[in-house]
């Protein structure tokens, strides 16, 4: 079995779509046959379990496993829709001081034996929770809204990835991918929003994909369905394209254009329009 991959989904700025993207990417990876686990690093403010729709099945959590109060198999929650998809939820009652590097390292090493992809959902900020989430990552998806404060915070977190990750400290580099979320082509054209090119120029990181602003995201959230497992919509398509790029796989075939969103296909793939 090929070596497992640890990917952190981070941003610096809060509310830009990290958890949504973690769920979407994790679910799509699993759907394509890769055994995947998504871990919530936001101790005390957990929402990955809500977005994944497993909040009523949480018995043990990440901190329990770190503290040897439960085994990994007791804490991992298997998704009901995708057989390859698992969730390791965060604790809601404790705080991030409970995250110790040695403990996290042990859990990740254990997970690497079973899973192909380990997706770490980072909390916002540049403090302990975020640092722990990115420390063991080999690759990073930097979620950015086309908006000035999000871009600046993403720039900051890229700097942190380049200095405070395990790979950086060993003289290597975390592979970084830019994921622009909540993008509106019409608003960008009107100059109300930063364009994809603006964001790319400031951050100088390879573009993974562009996810459109979509009402589908809110309804999927509220129903606890990862976007990529939801009914067809523009954001789902965009996330699928992003995962294809992440895996270096060809696009899944789209048979119909009845929702009209395929006209923005080039934007979502980050190609020049």
């Amino acid at each position, binding site marked *: 079995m090929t070596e497992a991959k640890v990917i952190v989904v981070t941003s610096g700025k809060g509310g830009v779509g990290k958890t949504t993207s973690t769920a979407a990417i994790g679910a799509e990876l699993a759907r394509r046959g890769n055994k995947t686990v998504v871990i919530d690093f936001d101790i005390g403010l957990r929402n990955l379990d809500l977005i994944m729709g497993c909040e009523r099945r949480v018995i043990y959590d990440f901190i329990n496993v770190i503290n040897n109060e439960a085994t990994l198999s007791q804490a991992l929650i298997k998704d009901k829709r995708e057989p390859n998809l698992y969730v390791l939820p965060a604790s809601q009652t404790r705080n991030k001081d409970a995250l110790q590097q040695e403990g996290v390292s042990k859990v990740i090493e254990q997970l690497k034996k079973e899973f192909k992809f380990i997706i770490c959902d980072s909390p916002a900020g540049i403090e302990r929770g975020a640092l722990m989430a990115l420390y063991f990552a080999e690759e990073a998806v930097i979620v950015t809204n086309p908006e000035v404060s999000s871009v600046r915070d993403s720039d900051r977190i890229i*700097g942190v990835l380049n200095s405070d990750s395990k790979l950086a400290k060993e003289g290597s580099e975390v592979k970084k991918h830019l994921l622009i979320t909540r993008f509106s082509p019409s608003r960008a054209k009107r100059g109300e929003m930063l364009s994809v090119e603006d964001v790319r120029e400031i951050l100088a990181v390879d573009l993974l994909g562009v996810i459109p602003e979509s009402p589908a995201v809110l309804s999927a959230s509220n129903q606890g369905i990862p976007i990529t497992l939801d009914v067809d919509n523009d954001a789902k398509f965009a996330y699928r394209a992003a995962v294809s790029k992440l895996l270096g796989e060809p696009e899944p075939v789209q048979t119909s254009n009845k929702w009209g969103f395929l006209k923005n296909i080039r934007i979502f793939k980050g190609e020049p329009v």
Partner: protein
Amino acid sequence: MSTHLEQNNTTNAGIAFQLKGGLFTLTTLQIFSADINALHTQLTAKIQQAPNFFHNAPLVLDLKIAVQTNIDFAALSDMLKSLNLIPVGIKNATPEQTQNAIKHGFAILRDAPNPKERELLATNPQVTPKSHVAKIITDPVRSGQQIYAPDGDLIIINQVSNGAELIADGSIHVYGSMRGRALAGINGNTNARIFCNSLEAELVSVAGNYKISEDIERQAWKIAAQIYIKDDRLQISAL
């Protein structure tokens, strides 16, 4: 100036202190007049332009121009403190001013001699001038990063983000967009310059003379530019 003196007080089991040399950037207030009221009025106006910059700022008072005047150091100190400025020392003072200042708790500071002076002062012909090695960075400088090039130039062959800081004893060259802060000639080298492919900086400074983006925007923005000191003032011109 970056001497590293360490003296451990090891007579007791518990060490109470340690002495270390340090290097700090201080803003200089050049005093032209002994009129405390005029100073107060004009300083208040200046502080309003950038209150955070001046809040609790340590100041060195340069008395080079005010050399003939009799300065009331007690009143001056009180006035500065009332504006939340902290006078730490004076420089270029006459012997009388110096005596007076010491009585009121001012430290007497000296500029580091410039390279020409140092050469003239050196009696030993075998003393070689310090070599200036440039620090070269090829990756983008990210927001929150601080790069310091001691004793030489700093060269960035990439862009510098908003929120990043470049500091050098010598000149700073940015072969890319300069969006952060650049402080050249940090130890008083007024010959240092800042060069960049696209000037979009938050703040530029040479030997303590600075301009913020609002001022820069009016003169030269998003063009290839150099920043330098001429006639004691910070100049910006297109390259």
